């Protein structure tokens, strides 16, 4: 361990002596302090705080990510190019220990920089919050500076599929269809059934049954927030639609909102006292659509109940923990590429990987369409190409790997006051560090172990 720590400490010294630590720290702090002066918000304290969190954490992630990649590529590739590795590798230290030592140095450096910038963001938020009026502070503490758990309606996919199959059978009994059309018929029926579950016709009510029993302990005395998002079939002259919300657990008297005027296609939160939850932790929510237009509440994000689960501080720390996992992955990618490439090529290669990761939306749409040739959503027909036979499975594999890291969105969660659980952090650590960084690390160490280290001539 003494050897590994010596290498890690060397990485720290290099970062300090080359003033990289100082420059990155100043940039990070500049972003944290400077961005609030530049960003535009909706004028509310909540909106400003949400945007502030989003921008500062995104800036920290981007800056730290780039510097991590750069340093990771440089710390190993430069050692090889400048031949210092020749003096180190002939000492009684295994190559994997050199590699791990450098990785440890990088991730500990990242941890320090992330802690420094994270603490600055946290302190800035708390400071700004204390300068707001009490009512605004309360809103912030309830909706943003908090860790809120989420509960949704039970998953209806199986029920919808079963219903679609039943309808298909009935239709087949009435009007026998040729076998070739069956999948398309079933798909259409499925969409129809799904629409029925999502749609609330004018004058109708849709009810959601939410199970809050798991988080009930932390709910006592804390308000609940019903988070709603809907789409409208038509536009309204005012741009908003009226909704009425009722929540409770029969036979107790329910809580009922006043008529709410809400805009479609965006999220709204409605506060409900937690005392209306039933003894078994069940809460039924009904929404009346008094408009003359049908409203659609998407199954995945139409309605959920948010409840206070923990403090913002710890949640923020867990969010930074996930960002740290990303940084550890970038450090691994940088080191792995520097294990077999020269510094500029390694940096280019690593950045290329990063670009592929960030552009995975395009890959995802190709995988969803099942073709590179384009998908006609109106006719449901898709182009075809021999390339698809190879490219789509490759894209699917890439997407699976990329999603191991992209499954987590700590910035969105923090700015939305959503809880990042320990389980989520553990999963992030397992997927991002354990699996992804592990794979890159094993590859990097293997190739570094095989590499001839004395082929480079010194460039000092």
């Amino acid at each position, binding site marked *: 361990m*003494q*050897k590994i*720590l*010596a290498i890690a*400490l*060397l990485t720290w*010294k*290099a970062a300090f*002596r*080359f003033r990289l630590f100082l420059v990155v720290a100043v940039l990070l702090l500049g972003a944290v302090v400077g961005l609030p002066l530049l960003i535009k918000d909706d004028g509310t304290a909540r909106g400003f705080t949400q945007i502030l969190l989003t921008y500062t954490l995104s800036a920290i992630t981007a800056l730290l990510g780039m510097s991590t990649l750069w340093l990771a590529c440089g710390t190993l590739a430069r050692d090889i190019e*400048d*031949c*210092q590795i*020749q*003096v*180190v*590798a*002939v*000492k*009684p*230290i*295994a190559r994997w220990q050199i590699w791990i030592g450098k990785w440890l140095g990088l991730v500990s450096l990242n941890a320090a920089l992330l802690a420094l910038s994270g603490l600055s963001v946290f302190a800035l938020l708390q400071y700004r919050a204390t300068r707001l009026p009490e009512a605004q502070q309360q809103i912030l503490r309830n909706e943003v500076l908090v860790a809120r758990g989420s509960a949704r309606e039970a998953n209806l996919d199986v029920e919808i599929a079963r219903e679609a199959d039943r309808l298909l059978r009935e239709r087949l009994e009435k009007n026998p269809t040729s076998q070739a059309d069956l999948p398309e018929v079933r798909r259409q029926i499925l969409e129809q059934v799904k629409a029925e579950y999502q749609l609330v016709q004018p004058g109708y009510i849709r009810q959601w049954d939410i199970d809050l029993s798991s988080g009930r302990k932390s709910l006592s005395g804390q308000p609940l927030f019903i988070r709603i998002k809907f789409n409208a079939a038509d536009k309204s002259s005012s741009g908003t639609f009226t909704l009425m919300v009722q929540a409770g657990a029969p036979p107790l008297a329910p809580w009922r909102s006043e008529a709410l005027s809400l805009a479609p296609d965006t999220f709204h939160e409605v506060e409900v006292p937690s005392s209306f939850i039933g003894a078994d932790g069940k809460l039924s929510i009904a929404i009346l659509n008094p408009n003359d237009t049908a409203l659609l509440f998407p199954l995945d994000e139409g309605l959920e109940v948010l409840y206070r689960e923990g403090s913002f501080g710890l949640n923020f720390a867990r969010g930074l923990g996930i960002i740290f996992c990303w940084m550890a992955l970038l450090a691994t990618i940088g080191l792995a590429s520097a294990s077999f490439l020269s510094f500029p090529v390694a940096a280019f290669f690593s950045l290329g990987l990063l670009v592929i990761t960030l552009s995975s939306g395009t890959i995802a749409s190709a995988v969803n369409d099942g073709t590179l040739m384009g998908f006609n959503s109106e006719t449901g027909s898709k182009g075809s190409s021999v390339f698809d036979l190879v490219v789509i499975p490759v894209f699917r594999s890439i997407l699976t790997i990329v999603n191991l890291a992209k499954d987590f969105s700590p910035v969105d969660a923090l700015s939305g006051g959503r809880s990042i659980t320990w389980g989520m952090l553990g999963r992030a650590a397992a997927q991002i560090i354990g699996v992804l960084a592990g794979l890159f690390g094993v590859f990097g160490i293997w190739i570094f172990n095989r590499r*001839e*280290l*004395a*082929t480079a001539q*010194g460039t*000092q």
Partner: protein
Amino acid sequence: MAILAETALSNTVAAQPDKRETIVAVRGLTKIFKDFWGRPKARAVDDVDFEVRRGEVFGLLGPNGSGKSTTVKLLLGLLHPTKGHIEVFGRSPRHVATKARIGYLPEESYLYRYLNSRETLDFFGNLFELSRSDRNNRAEQLLEMVGLNQARLRAVGEFSKGMQRRIGLAQALINDPDLVILDEPTSGLDPIGCREVKDLIVALARRGKTVILSSHLLADVEDVCDRVVIYYGGKIQAMGTLRELLATPDAIRITTPALPRATLERVMEIIRQDVAQDKVHIDTPTQNLESYFLEVVRKARTAAADTSGATSGARVAKYLRGDPEGEAASDRILERLAAPAASAAPDLNPAPAETVDQAKLAALTQPAAPAPEAAVEKPGQAAEPSFDEANDKLSGLLGKKS
């Protein structure tokens, strides 16, 4: 005064089997550098065989690009052989246990430029898992030895080439290695530094350490090496002890203090009875430039001239002498440097001999006289005056540190 006469003395240097432990064994070693597509680009080392035994100072000699450094890097596991086999301490050179016993000074200063001397030694000490106190002690002794104790807090990147060689040498010795591999160790060093390095090599060898020295500087190799291989074009062109390689079997040299003309005439007359006039040469020996330079510096130092560069190193670090009291028997090597008859240390003020040994002279000029027994002896295995006297002389010569 020296008399060189070509005689019919036969060289009976006999190769005696060396029973010392084999430290490095190289068999059929070949290294071919290839291009990106795997096509052969250069055959740097070509079917090389040699062995290095414990306590030897083994020289790799050859012009630039002859394969010396490649061989060194193969020995260190930094390059992989294309063909052939290398064993160091009976194991692969890449084995951690092997590397723990090796000290390596590369051909250039490949040290971290942002670390200072003290941090550099501490870092490498950590790689050998030395305790903090060991690291501190050894770093202090090494910095003292290489004359960098006044530059301990300066970044290595700010050092002159000579100073970088000194700190490089210090890091190579932090683990008290059993095998020291030095690639062009005197490159960039001033004559005083060169002498110190050579003294150190001899002192290490006296302690049973094995030294492999790669150099194209013939004087370095000649001064310290027991055995050499001479490379050219990646192949070994010659290998053997210096005595084997350099002996001129058909000539002898007699060196005496200045003789009265009459005595000289008598000697010449005896010699001319067996050797033709044109085969006998008489000249006055001159000291070499290195000796002369060292004497000038010694005088300047005595006059206390200031310098802002590296100072001369002090005595060999205690732990390298293998004796915590600093009075190790190995330091008797210093005697060689001070003794008049020693080969490496110049005899600046030779004392005149009292008489010419006529009997020995007569014996040498006898054609049938037996040749001296061949023995591979280190330069330092000459007469051994007291340690203190020798050490004082060296300290005076190189500038003893307080």
